[in-house]
């Protein structure tokens, strides 16, 4: 899928790597507490309900992964 108007084979970008988007789906899914039972709300961690802390950890992982993706899969050819 290389279009003369839109890019060249030399230019790399995140949309050329489908696995990146599967990782994003998994990380965003982890940020939503659908996998925890209701009784987990009574547990706190660092002052927040456990599910809130887990959500923040997942979003921190999204941030770190994004730094990696931008650095590794976005070429700077002008």
């Amino acid at each position, binding site marked *: 899928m290389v279009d003369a108007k839109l890019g060249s084979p030399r230019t790399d970008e995140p*949309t050329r790597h489908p696995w990146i988007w599967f990782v994003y789906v998994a990380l965003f899914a982890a*940020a*939503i507490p659908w996998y925890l039972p209701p009784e987990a709300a009574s547990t706190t961690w660092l002052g927040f309900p456990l599910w809130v802390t887990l959500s*923040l950890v*997942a*979003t921190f992982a999204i*941030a770190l992964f*994004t730094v990696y993706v931008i650095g590794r899969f976005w070429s700077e050819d002008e």
Partner: protein
Amino acid sequence: MSSIPLGYGAVAFTGVYLLAMVGIGFLAKSKREGDSLSDFYLAGRSLGPFVLVLTLYATQYSGNTVVGYPAEASRLGYAWIMSVSFMMAIVVGYLLYAPKLQRVARRHGFVTPGDWVDYRFGSNRLSLLTNVLLVVSIANYLLAQLMAMGHIVAGISGNLVPYWVGVTVLIFVIIIYETLGGLRAVAWTDVLQGGMLFVGLLGLLYVAAPGPSHWQALTDWLSANAPEKTAIPSREVQTRWLSTVLLIGFSGSVYPQAIQRIYAAKSARALKRSLQCMIFMPLVTMPVVVLVGLVGLRRFTGLTGIAADQILPMLLAEWAQQSVWTYLLAVLVVTGTLAAIMSTADSVLLSLSSILSKDFLGKSVLAGASEKRLTTVGKRLSWLVMAALASIAFVPRMTLWGLLELKMEILVQVSPIFILGAMWDRLDGRAAFYGMLVGAVLASGFALGGVGGFGGFHTGLVAWAINVAICVGLSFVLAGEQPGDHSPARKNG
């Protein structure tokens, strides 16, 4: 102190801040390198990573973030921590199209979002529809900022400075520095405004709940008095969370003012560095905002609807009475909040002005006009737009979050032409037009008809899914037509 909750010190500090904004406007004017559209609207494509990250931050984090979101946290409880994920989704959304768009825009000298549509699809009607939807969406957004200005000023001054006076004065300051220096002035004021917002938020964290022991005390109070605020969100709220991540991720990343910052980056490297910083901003911003909302809930139980938008002003007024330090922090926070609102409003106004001038008038009554003429007309349009929106802002009818959601439902319909258009070279201009038209009509119809959602998903997102299905399906159908058909994408490819 009894009539003005933050006293004359706050008035003086705000006055110095507003004068500094105008001063930066004059400085930016002195650095202008001509009257071209790209010099005025894109700062001559000269923004480095430091300015980019602060201008993106100040633009994305708005009056709604500081005034509307604590109110939302007080309604939803800890579930509003979803705001971290949906603000991050905007940066992830950029990765779908910004690498390609930045490269093409630089090569072909794009100024407005419509330039991409013209280049990629070569379709006048698609370009017109895109610009109409963008203008409707961001005019709505600008209106929300103007209302937020009025709320902050009225709350802090104890209504001594009426809502409408706050709106009017700040409009004049914004429009003066913006017409003086264009994006250069807007981006440079954003550096100061973004910095003030960031420091103000740290101040908020310090006063509201600075560490784990305070967070624990807050959680314990909520568990005892409002257990639904600490409970794991219901399936319905979880679905809304997912829907909001998708809606904001796809719509927030195609804000015209964000797209124009992609164009204004001085290089791909500068843009990459700025996004690598931006991805962390939700983590240092939104938890503070959620905590403030919950502290406000504990302090002023029973706030609902429009009154909940007054949580932050009421907290600041109260903290200002406690000690000199909390007074100074309250002054800093309120000025930082004003800065957040103004920095979003100025960017949106500049984008509106560029679209109206270059894409609407420049293609009709001013076709063939010089760039200098279009720039001058754009400045005059800024005054007209602000006057029209101010007259609406004087009679607020909805909460701030309600305004934002309505805007996102329309804006998200534009995203396929940027995201799919950059990713998939077979996307046909006619398919994109019909997809966007159907998506926009459905989203508007659902909103006007009072349809709240489908199984927890936003109606705008459902309309967007239909939009994307039409884009893809119709592109395949049209690709089966004879070579030499009417497809603008093919024609120009």
